[in-house]
């Protein structure tokens, strides 16, 4: 009858100091968080944006230099490498995770005995730190002791797998490790979506004579649109922020071959004493994430509003 937004408004005009305190209490409770977020998130964002227009080097300085940092940023080969890597990494990471995730979810949805064992196995990497993941894959992909060596021991002596040492191919090693960590999670998202589909629709499709394959292609997968969208947003967000994994796996090398915007920002700000450029790269990263997240959050909030 009443809208949720209004449902819980307490009596507004209670009298007396105690009652007034009661009325202000909710705001007082929320105030510290609000202040913290205003300062530590939005204030800091503004500060970093400001720094990106200054001549800051090893420490923040406040001489304005206009767009000079951005101009320098876009002339730096390393930044272009970082962007190119992000494009390769992001596209493959999202693409492969979605394919594996959907594939596994559909397989698991075939009334599998032992689903309760398999599902946690697919998902546990998500509980690990990227540093741990990076360490494991770093040595497993290492030609000296890892996979290549294993193959040689098993008699395939001509096997070569030196991607992690190869400036052209090292970024694909990052993709391998990252997919390993996240694809189980994408599987869980799709599985939740599959389990949420109305049984009667599927029964109707069966009666209409659709094969299992047709049911998935024509009816089930189109209904997973929200899961696709969520997976894309989460993975894109993770890809743009990726830092730990690269540090642990390749430390952005060999050379700067696996540089990503996050490692670029860190090294220019804290190691190369170009804080202005670092700040500018952080601003670009923020804009990249915002372009993915803001429409999504906006749609979610709007969608939630319509449901009421």
């Amino acid at each position, binding site marked *: *009858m*009443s809208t949720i937004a209004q449902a819980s408004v307490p*009596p507004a*005009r*209670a009298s007396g100091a105690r009652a007034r305190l009661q009325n202000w209490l909710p705001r007082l409770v929320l105030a510290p968080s609000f202040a913290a977020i205003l300062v530590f998130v939005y204030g800091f964002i503004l500060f970093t944006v400001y720094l990106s227009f200054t001549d800051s080097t090893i420490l923040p300085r406040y001489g304005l230099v206009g767009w000079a940092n951005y101009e320098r940023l876009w002339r730096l080969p390393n930044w272009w490498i970082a962007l190119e890597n992000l494009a390769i990494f992001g596209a493959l990471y999202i693409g492969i995770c979605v394919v594996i995730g959907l594939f596994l979810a559909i397989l698991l949805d075939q009334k599998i005995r032992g689903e309760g064992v398999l599902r946690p196995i697919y998902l546990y990497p998500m509980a690990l730190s990227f540093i741990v993941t990076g360490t494991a894959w770093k040595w497993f992909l290492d030609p000296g002791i890892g996979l290549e060596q294993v193959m040689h021991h098993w008699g395939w002596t001509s096997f070569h797998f030196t991607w992690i040492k190869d400036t052209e191919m090292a970024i694909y090693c990052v993709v391998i490790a990252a997919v390993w960590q996240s694809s189980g999670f994408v599987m869980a998202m799709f599985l939740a979506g599959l389990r949420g589909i109305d049984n009667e629709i599927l029964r109707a499709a069966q009666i209409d004579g659709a094969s299992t394959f047709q049911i998935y292609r024509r009816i089930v997968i189109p209904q997973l649109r929200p899961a696709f969208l969520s997976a894309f947003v989460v993975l894109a967000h993770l890809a743009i922020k990726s830092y730990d994994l690269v540090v642990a796996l390749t430390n952005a090398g060999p050379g700067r071959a696996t540089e990503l915007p996050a490692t670029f920002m860190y090294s220019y700000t804290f190691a190369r004493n170009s804080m202005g450029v670092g700040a500018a790269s952080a601003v670009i990263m923020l804009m990249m994430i915002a372009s993915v997240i803001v429409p999504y959050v906006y749609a979610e909030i709007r969608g939630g509003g319509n449901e009421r």
Partner: protein
Amino acid sequence: MAFLEIVDLEKSFGNVRVLKGINLEVEEGDFLVLVGPSGCGKSTLLNTIAGLEPISGGEIRINGRVVNDLAPAKRDIAMVFQSYALYPNMTVAGNIAFGMEMRGIPKAERDRKVAEVAKMLQIDHLLDRRPSRLSGGQRQRVAMGRALVRDPQVFLFDEPLSNLDAKLRVEMRTEIKRLHSSMGTTIVYVTHDQVEAMTLATKIAVLKDGVLQQFGTPDEVYNDPANIFVADFMGSPAMNLIPARVDAGAAEPMLVLDRGSEEPLRLPLNGAAPKLANAVGGDIFFGIRPEALTDPDSADRTASHVAHGECTIEVVEPTGSDTFAITRLGGKPVVARLRADARVRAGEPMRLAFNLDKTVFFDAKTEQRIA
């Protein structure tokens, strides 16, 4: 001075006016039912009486005291919610006693009162259970117990029976009525079910779009509806509302009902004629309840005026106790209530009796009652 007074009550959510100047007065011991379709503002009205929602204007008085600015707990009211709103983490006894605990009543007295109320509602064997382990009817009783134990000046019920199945609903309805007559407390009760309203109320307030349509006893609301909305809303099956004309006629004004391809049906107006003098030649709605439109043998023998007319029956619906026959008058389906064993067949004409004592007339434009 009435016991519960609501004066020019206004309530807005933002720019939306939900209650538009409500005026109500009930005496101590009255059972007021607020009824109307969903979205009419009846629950909002109840919440403003409870103090759960601040009002935008007007005044609410309970027993002479203005309660506009009082917190819910200070208004001396108790409320039973649609979902029962039992605290899931507390036992039945804990639920009933929580309000007393908040008011600092000693444990011993709390236990005594809980036991007393539990006995009255026959839930004393459930006191140690959690709400999740109760049936719908038991939850309902616990919710009532929580309200009863406070012994408030006014009980507020927000659609308390709507989550029960049909059979249980009837049982609980009777129980609530029994409780009311034995305790004599003032009750305000919200429902969208007009049968509940009729059976329980001593006073009914019909709301639509935040406006009070009619306020009166069940008899008044049923037999003398103030407008087409009330006439249509109260009663099941609903009142027949037939587009009609008033014809000057040879001797006195006559009511003219269109019968499709056949010649229109003309009925005398009798006592209503003077009031309808202004409507001659104009369009009106003629209202007659199914039980006043019968086979000639079932016509009310105490009625002073009964008219008859031939109508073609389109559909016959036997219910066991009665048979409903649907004909078409004024271009609309019209329901007549016949004896269960009435001889009637779909597609055949039948002579129907119109009890003219029980008819009402509405202006087609304003939809207000004219006679």
